[in-house]
C-alpha cells in the first residue's frame, strides 16, 4: 500500500450570495495515490471544477481537512501554495489557457519562472516536454498560430514540463473533436505511466473510460466510485 498523496476529509465549500449560502461541496472524502488516474463525472453545477480547484490549491475549502503529502494545505500562505502549484501540480484547462503574447516555449517555461528554477534547466525540461507532446516544430509559434489540438498539447507540455506529482485536467477534451481528444488522452496515459497522478473532469463516458477510477459527483457529494 503506497502512502496517500492527498487526503480529503469532510471537505465543504459554500459561496455566500448576499444573505444566502450556496452549498457547492457538501462533505467530500477522497484519498488519492501517486498511481491514480481518476475521472470525475457529474451533472453541470455539481461542483466538479470547484473540487479540482481545491485539490489544486487554487481554492480553499470552507471546512474539512486537506492534506497534501501530509501537509495541511488550507493553512499555508499564498507564497507557499503558489510554490506548490508551480512545482507539484500541473493544470490543464478546457480552453487551453495559453498566454496569447507568449510563444509555445515561453508558455512552457512559465512555471519554472515562478518556481525559481535555473533558466538552463527550465529550457532543457521545457523543450523535452514540448518534444514529448510532439510540438517541436511549433516551438516558436504563438498560440493564435496553432490548432486546438496543438494548443492543448502545448498546455499539457506546460503542465508536465516541471514533472509535477499531480496533473489536474478540467474537461481537457471538451473543445476538441473526438480523434484529437483521443490523442490528448493518450498523452495523459503516457504521463500517468511515467508516474504522475491524474485527475480529470469530464462529461464524456468514452473519455472517462481512459481512467482507472471514475467518481460520480452529484449535489456536492460523491455518489458513486467505480474502479
Amino acid at each position: 500500500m503506497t502512502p496517500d498523496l492527498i487526503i480529503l476529509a469532510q471537505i465543504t465549500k459554500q459561496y455566500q450570495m448576499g444573505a444566502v449560502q450556496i452549498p457547492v461541496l457538501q462533505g467530500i472524502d477522497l484519498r488519492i495515490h501517486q498511481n491514480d488516474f481518476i475521472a470525475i463525472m457529474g451533472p453541470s453545477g455539481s461542483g466538479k471544477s470547484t473540487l479540482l480547484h481545491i485539490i489544486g490549491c487554487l481554492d480553499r475549502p470552507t471546512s474539512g481537512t486537506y492534506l497534501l503529502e501530509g501537509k495541511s494545505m488550507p493553512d499555508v500562505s499564498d507564497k507557499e501554495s503558489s510554490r506548490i502549484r508551480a512545482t507539484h501540480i500541473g493544470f490543464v484547462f478546457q480552453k487551453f489557457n495559453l498566454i496569447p503574447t507568449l510563444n509555445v516555449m515561453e508558455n512552457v517555461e512559465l512555471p519554472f519562472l515562478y518556481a525559481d528554477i535555473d533558466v538552463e534547466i527550465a529550457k532543457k525540461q521545457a523543450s523535452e516536454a514540448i518534444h514529448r507532446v510532439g510540438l517541436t516544430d511549433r516551438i516558436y509559434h504563438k498560440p493564435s498560430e496553432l490548432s486546438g489540438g496543438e494548443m492543448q498539447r502545448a498546455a499539457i507540455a506546460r503542465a508536465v514540463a516541471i514533472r509535477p506529482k499531480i496533473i489536474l485536467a478540467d474537461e481537457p477534451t471538451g473543445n476538441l473533436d473526438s480523434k484529437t481528444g483521443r490523442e490528448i488522452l493518450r498523452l495523459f496515459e503516457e504521463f500517468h505511466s511515467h508516474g504522475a497522478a491524474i485527475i480529470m473532469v469530464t462529461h464524456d463516458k468514452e473519455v472517462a473510460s481512459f481512467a482507472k477510477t471514475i467518481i460520480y459527483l452529484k449535489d456536492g457529494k460523491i455518489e458513486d466510485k467505480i474502479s
Partner: protein
Amino acid sequence: MMKISFRSLLQHKLRASLSIFGIICGVMAFLTMISIGEGAREKIIHQIEQLGIKNIYVRAVALTEDQKLRADEHLSKGLSVYDADRIRSGCRYIRDVGYLKELKQSLRDSGISPQIVAISSNYAQLLNISIAQGRFIRDSDIRYKSLICVAGDEVAKSLGAKGKLGSHIRIEDQLFKIVGILSRSDKEIKQSSVMSARNHNQMIFIPAGTQQPEAQTAQKKNEAELTEIVAQTINTDVVVKAGSIIARILDVSHKNIDDYQIVIPQELLRQAEKTQSTFNITLGAIAGISLLVGGVGIMNIMLATVTERTKEIGVRRAIGATQQDIVVQFLTESVMLTVIGGIAGIGIGAAAVRIVSAFAGWDTAVTLFAIAVPLLMSVLVGIFFGLYPAFRAAKMDPVAALRHE
C-alpha cells in the same frame, strides 16, 4: 520578465503611446526647467567668478539733462578718486580699493580701436587678471606717470609685430611702451547687463594719471573722473554689509545725486536665484500637473489592462505565480510605460531646449542632472500610479479570474 512586459505593451501600441503623452509632457517640462535653470546658473556663476565674489563695484551712470543740472547745483562731480579714498578709509570691511576710467581716446597708426582704460595699480589683482608676458602696472608707474601700457591678448595679436613686449604704441599724442600682455580670458562676454564683466582681451591698460586730459567741450564738462571703483571686502560674509556702508558714504559725497550705481555680484547671484525660483515654481507646477495627469492616464490604462487580462492573471496564478509575482509583472509594465514616456520626453525636451536657446538666445545646459531628475520622476510616477492596478490584479481570486471570460 522585461521582455514579456514589453511584448504585452506592443499589443496595444496606439493605446500605450496615447497613455504616455502626459508623461512625455511632464518630463519635457522638467527637463526644460532644469536645463534653463542650470544654464542661467552656469552663466551667472561664470560672470561672478569674473567679477569676483568678494568685490563691490561702483559704476558711473550717465545722467539725464535734468539730473545734470541738479548735479551742477549740488556740486557733485561724479565718481572720483576721492570717492575711492573715502571708501577705503570709511569702511573697515574693505581690504582694498581700485578704480578704472574708460577713455575715449584712440590708438593711432594701428587700424584697430581697442578700449583704452586708465587704472589703479591694484586693479589686476582685484579682478584676478593674469599676465602672460611681462608685468602689470605698478605703484611706481602711477607715481612717476610712466608711459607704459599692458595690452589684452586680442589687442596684442592684432597689433602683430608692433604688439610685442618693448614696442611702443601711440595713444593720442603720447607713446606708450608695452610692458605686459594679458593671458587670454577664457570666455567671450556679452556686454549687456549691469553685471557683465569687461572683456579684457580687447583692452589696453595704462596707469591712471598718464592720460592726456580730454578736450574740455561743454558736453564733457560733467564727465566723471572715474568709470568704475572696485572695492574688495575682507571676506564673502561682509559683502552686503560693506555694500550698504559704501552706499551711505557715497550718498553723502554725491549729495544724493544718483550718478553712480552699486553692483554687488554676490547680491546679483541672490537676485538671479530668486527670479530663477519663481520661474522654477511656475514650470515645476506645470511639470507636476502634467506628470499627475500623465500618471492618472497610466493608472487608467493599467486598470484596463488588468481587467482585460483577468483570465491571464488566473492562469498565471494556477501555474504558480504568487501575488507578489503578479504585482511585479504589472508594475514592470507601468514603469516601462512611464520610462518610455520619460525617454521620449527627454529626447523631445532636449531638442526643444536647443531650439529655444538658439532662437531666444538663452543660456541652457542639458546636464546629467537635467536628464536624471525627470527620468527618476517618470520611474516614480510609474511605480506610484501602477501600484493600485498591480495590487488589484494580485488580489483577484484566482478561481474567479480563471472563470472570467
